[in-house]
């Protein structure tokens, strides 16, 4: 994934974060380093509570690291950077229940845009996630999957070059989840952007990404960096049955379990 522009979109160097409360310190990240190229989709795969959400918060500028550095487009992160879209797991808490769907999407737009542009971008983003008809409704009147679509539309309306997603599909049912995964693959092709997605779901991490970064239990460190060569056209059924997918899943599972890589499978099994 080397383009003409070699500056990585995301560059994390020796990141360390510790939480201190009631006189006792929990080290969440300790010396983590990571690079994400432009237009790459990278999934951070790690066990629950390993610190991957904290890592994402550092990328979003919502938390200052205790040590180390985060650079976006070569610039050190201090505060929330521009051109960022973020989708949180908890759409119920991240959407504004008192605002309509359209107002929620509008919320993501920069304050200095004029009214006509805002309206056009909102409509376009809702169209992209298949919610053009729901603009006047309130989040509370929508299903969980639809609410998360609103959150995705809000991020897209901003035209981000970096989309950060924190367990975005963990709170919806399996069918909705598959829909949302395909939605992400589609919008990723339509909007040129880098995506960093945090998940603890092995299948999802492989299905969605160009690269899976496997993290260890807390404090999170990079255990392995798996390239996902499944091409651009993916399908919930055939892709997940493919030899490459199944093999990657076995490797990721093994790496997650005890940090050891699964052996190459016999090549004759198809």
């Amino acid at each position, binding site marked *: 994934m080397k383009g003409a522009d070699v500056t990585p979109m995301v560059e994390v160097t020796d990141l360390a974060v510790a939480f201190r409360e009631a006189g006792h310190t929990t080290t969440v990240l300790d010396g983590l380093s990571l690079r994400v190229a432009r237009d790459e989709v990278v999934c951070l795969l790690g066990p629950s509570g390993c610190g991957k959400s904290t890592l994402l*918060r550092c990328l*979003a500028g*919502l938390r200052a690291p205790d040590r180390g550095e985060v650079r976006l487009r070569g610039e050190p992160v201090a505060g*929330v950077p*521009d051109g*960022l879209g*973020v989708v*949180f797991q*908890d759409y119920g*808490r*991240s959407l*504004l*229940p*008192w*605002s309509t769907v359209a107002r929620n999407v509008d*919320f*993501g*737009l*920069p*304050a200095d845009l004029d009214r006509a542009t805002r309206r056009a971008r909102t409509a376009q983003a809702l169209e992209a996630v298949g919610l053009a008809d729901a603009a006047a409704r*309130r*989040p*509370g*009147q929508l299903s969980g999957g639809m609410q998360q679509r609103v959150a995705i539309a*809000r991020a897209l309306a*901003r035209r981000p070059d970096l989309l950060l997603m924190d367990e975005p599909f963990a709170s919806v049912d399996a069918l909705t989840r598959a829909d949302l995964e395909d939605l992400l693959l589609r919008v990723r092709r339509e909007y040129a952007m880098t995506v960093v997605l945090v998940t603890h779901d092995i299948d999802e991490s492989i299905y969605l990404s160009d690269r899976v970064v496997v993290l260890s239990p807390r404090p999170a460190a990079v255990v392995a960096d798996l390239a996902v060569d499944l091409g651009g056209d993916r399908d919930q059924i055939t892709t997940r049955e493919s030899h490459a997918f199944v093999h990657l899943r076995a490797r990721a599972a093994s790496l997650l379990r005890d940090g050891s890589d699964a052996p190459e499978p016999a090549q004759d099994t198809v």
Partner: protein
Amino acid sequence: MAAVERRGGGVGVTGARSPLVRWGVFALALVVWELAARAAGSAFFPPPSAIAAAGWALWFSGPAVLTEGAWADVLPSVGRVLAGWAVSGVIGIAVGLLLGRSRRATEYLAPLLAFARALPPPVLIPVFLVLFAAGTPMQLATIVFGTVWPVLLATAAGARDVDPVTIDTAEVYGVAGLRRLRRVILPASAPRIVAGLRVSLSLALILMVVSELVASTNGLGHQLVVAQRSFDFTAMWAAIVLLGAVGYALNAALLGVERRALGWTTAGG
């Protein structure tokens, strides 16, 4: 809140929710009162029909519906309640937002607020009588001082408890300052603010009466004292009933506004 409770009603309460049944009980209570008062025949407890007639003569039989007495008593009282309550609302919401969103402000001001709030407002009437002119200024000061706390504390709690994920979202999308206040903090705190405003409204009514009992030349509280001192117990009761009716009407109006403004809190179901 009432709107929520009403939604949640099961099959068993359907009957009780019908206005006919509710007001039927009210009417029945009136009838019982009427009969009991007539049977007792005490000058201190006139029957409601006599109270209503006295009230009508006092306030509603005048040149253009309202009598001069109504202009002198009812309107100043209602005006003081609304003005005092509005000032409390503005101060309470403004200071409450500041306190709720600033840990430092809370730390500095918390002990002061706790003390000020613990003072029973009527004890300050003598102070306010010295500080402000007798009459409306003193009465407004009493009402404001007594009613500002529920709004202030409810607003502070509401502003402090805005969901951190919602705040993160505002942060990420660069929604800051006044824009964040208008689109996130205020609406998120609105249910608590309105609850505080309702407590304040009933307090404002109480303090209006109390402050009008002292050094006042008009208002319902004043009317109440005058009637009592001149042994006109029917007029005294009429003032009491009218105070109840005013309180009921103000609360009902606020509930109506609340149902419209906070419709989203029940929209999800």
